[in-house]
């Protein structure tokens, strides 16, 4: 499952990256490693240093300190040959004015030494039918697709997507996810920044969380922040005619105090079956069903909020 971390496989390597704007340090010592072919999600709240970091990797900004290597080169010294190997979808950019979709893609194709065929790129992002529409007339979702088309036409090895679905409705977001997931089959490495947990969970092979300019967690969407080892939460309501004291001992032991609101109880258990087994036996013996029984692991969002909240407290 895990990929070998050999040097050739590492597409982006960042060591001790710092970025200071006047007295404000936006990035305070970030280490990152992105491997070839993976979709890497860079998560963090607004103002955490996400876009600053990405723009350093893209070659837009000069860092204050640290080592950065992207496709084997330092972005702030890299030239056109390096730019031909990356694709960039900015957080905010509008289409070229007064050009059609196909003209925009042809214009950008001409910038690259070995572009993909324009028609193929339009197919890939699902804009073939809009090829002759004026780009500024596209919907928000279609404009983003055009952005992706412009970033793919040069046939990049590495693609930066900065908050690609912000402002999308749920169906447009789903469609965008399908498109991004499809890039995997092209062998493109994707560096994705987002503040949507479901997006990272749906797309990413690995997730790194930044808060207040520091990396606070990294891992796969399943394991990040110790998520796979975190206690399960069990919720249910006491059946009519029963009292708290009637519950079996293992269930009572797992009761997370103060969190039962009214008749609905909350239990926490590292090994949920040790609680669920006795609970089910007890309810069945009384002839009750536990209709609102709910068992869940903390979601990526729960983990993320906990991680970024801790960091905020630590900084305060």
């Amino acid at each position, binding site marked *: 499952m895990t990929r070998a971390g050999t040097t050739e496989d590492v597409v982006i390597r960042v060591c001790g990256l710092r970025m200071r*704007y006047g007295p404000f340090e936006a990035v305070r010592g970030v280490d990152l490693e992105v491997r070839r072919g993976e979709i890497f999600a860079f998560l963090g709240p607004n103002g955490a240093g996400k876009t600053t970091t990405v723009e350093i990797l893209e070659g837009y900004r000069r860092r204050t300190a640290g080592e950065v290597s992207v496709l084997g080169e330092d972005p702030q010294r890299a030239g*056109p*040959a390096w730019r031909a190997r990356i694709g960039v979808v900015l957080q905010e950019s509008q289409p070229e*004015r007064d050009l059609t979709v196909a003209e925009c893609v042809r214009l950008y194709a001409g910038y690259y030494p070995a572009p993909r065929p324009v028609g193929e790129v339009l197919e890939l992002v699902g804009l073939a039918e809009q090829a002759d529409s004026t780009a500024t007339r596209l919907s928000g979702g279609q404009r983003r697709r055009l952005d992706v088309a412009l970033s793919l036409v040069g046939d990049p090895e590495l693609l930066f997507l900065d908050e690609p679905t912000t402002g999308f409705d749920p169906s447009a977001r789903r469609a965008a996810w399908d498109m991004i997931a499809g890039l995997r089959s092209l062998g493109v490495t994707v560096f994705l920044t987002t503040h949507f947990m479901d997006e990272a969970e749906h797309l990413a092979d690995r997730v790194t969380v930044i808060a207040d300019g520091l990396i606070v967690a990294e891992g796969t969407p399943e394991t990040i922040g110790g998520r796979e080892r975190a206690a399960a939460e069990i919720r249910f309501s006491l059946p009519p005619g029963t009292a708290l004291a009637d519950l079996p001992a293992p269930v009572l032991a797992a009761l997370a105090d103060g969190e039962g609101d009214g008749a609905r109880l909350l239990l926490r258990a590292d090994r949920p079956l040790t609680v669920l087994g006795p609970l089910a036996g007890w309810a069945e013996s009384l002839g009750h069903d536990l209709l609102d029984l709910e068992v869940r692991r903390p979601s990526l969002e729960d983990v993320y909020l906990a991680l970024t909240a801790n960091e905020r407290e630590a900084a305060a």
Partner: protein
Amino acid sequence: MTSTNGTTSTNGTTSTNGTTAAHRAATDRTTSTHRAPPGDVARLALHQFPYDLRAFLRNPQSRFFTLALPVLFLVIFASVFGGHNTVKVPGGTIDTSVYYVPGIIALGIIGASFVNLVISVTAQREAGVLKRRRATPVPAASVIAGRALTAVVVAVVITTLLLVIGWALYGAHIPARTAPAMAVTVVLGALSFCCLGYALASVIRNEDAAQPVTQAVMLPLYFISGVFIASSVLPRWLVDIANVFPVHHLVAALLTAYNPHTTGAGFAWTDLLIVAAWGLGGLLIALRRFSWLPRGG
């Protein structure tokens, strides 16, 4: 009141979201040490050019202000002030309607290479279009030259249009011997005002400011530089002020090439030199300050 006040102002420009002067100084300075070969620069400029030209021609605002308005101005001014009036020019007098042709050509050149360029480049920068292009291998020089080429071609087209109107309606035609001087003046003028346009765009904060700022700069200069009113009827002190700026010298150079009384080839070298010097100054400012990233003002 006391001298201590003087020490507190220097660090007052920072804020946490980083959109500050210090921030800007840290960004967009990643000028690559890799220089693209001149052949690539030229090839990509020629690739860029037809797209910029097409976008220009499709934009109704560009078409009206840059192509239709000079024609409208020539017809209106020549009709209102023309008639049997004459204007004193070096070497004699010419009909007022004929006098307006080179003046409005100057307006046309400046409209194409300065006003339209400032507005479109500012809009492209603020929309993130330039920033997105910066992520591709296209050299900066190609993007800039491709856009400038569009401005020069449009300037040549509008000049030709105005010359044809001057000939058809007012019987004015440029002598064959000064035609090369006319062509050189138009191209040099357009290139110089492109450079000035890039310089001005680099100090304009946003798209909304581009239109009023360019007009605030150019309208007074048109009035004192012989575009709308002949310099020979203006007060001396206004002409002295106009003399400092390039509009006056572009008009003068065009008039020299267009004036039937001109002897020789019609190159107004001093005026051309002053226009070129302004262009060079603009280029230096543009090179220092030109930004690919939105200024977000």
